[in-house]
């Protein structure tokens, strides 16, 4: 059993020495191949243009992402500013309306108080009684003078 395992291990070692590509487990490999050339490992082949585009994409992706992020951020800031501005406008105008309400009510109350002050002097039963008394007085007085 042990011998069997040792034999298998030896075979694997020899194989890995003879075909280094199979045993190698790197991050990834590449090679430059001329037209019609062959590659020693299984590969996905890009032409020069595609490779250049990939390299360029790698270079520019950060910048583009940053720019997009900046744009989105600025847009969000603008949105928030608009919301805040609208709220400020509503607050301003609500304060104005409140002030108008208060001022007009105060003015109305003042006018009503003046009217009440003037009317407070009136005591209708007193007025009636006085008028009756004055009428009788005038009548009796006149009658008295006329009798003389």
């Amino acid at each position, binding site marked *: 059993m042990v011998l069997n395992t040792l034999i298998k291990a030896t075979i694997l070692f020899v194989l890995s020495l003879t075909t280094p*590509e199979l045993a190698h487990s*790197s*991050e*990834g*490999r*590449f*090679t*430059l191949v001329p037209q019609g050339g062959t590659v020693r490992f299984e590969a996905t082949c890009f032409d*020069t*243009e595609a*490779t*250049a585009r990939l*390299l*360029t*994409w*790698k*270079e*520019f992706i950060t*910048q*583009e992402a940053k*720019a*997009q992020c900046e*744009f989105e951020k*600025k*847009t969000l800031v*603008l949105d928030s500013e*608009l919301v805040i501005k*609208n709220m400020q*406008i509503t607050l301003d*105008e609500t304060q*104005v*309306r409140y002030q*108008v*309400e208060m001022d*007009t009510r105060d*003015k*109305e109350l003042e*006018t*009503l108080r003046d*009217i*009440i002050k*003037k*009317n407070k002097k*009136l005591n*209708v039963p007193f*007025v*009636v009684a006085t*008028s*009756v008394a*004055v*009428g*009788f007085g*005038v*009548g*009796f007085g*006149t*009658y008295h*003078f*006329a*009798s003389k």
Partner: protein
Amino acid sequence: MQSLMNFISTYWKEIAIASLLFVVSFFWWQDHKGLVNAYDASVESYETRLKELKESHQRETERKAEALEEYKAKLEELEIEYIVYQQAVAEARVERVQDFVALRQENPDQLILEIEEKFGFEYTD
């Protein structure tokens, strides 16, 4: 004079009632006037309030519309700025692609270094 006295002595009750009616009517008129004034004051107050509220609403709507216009203008400016930037980047990318294509022909070793540096791949001859 004597005839006036006679008239008054004869009709003093009527004169007294007339005087009373006059005085009471006068005070009633004053009272009514007070009520009308109170009503007028309320109406005037409501009218002022309505006018001011309408003006305030109008002003609010105008200010909000103005803010919205300002927002749209700024957003458009931002979008244009971003589009211009994207176009510039696209042009730079095209140029850079051409650079790499030229590098493949002129200096493959440099291209190998670039690929290794950017992607961390291992070059195999």
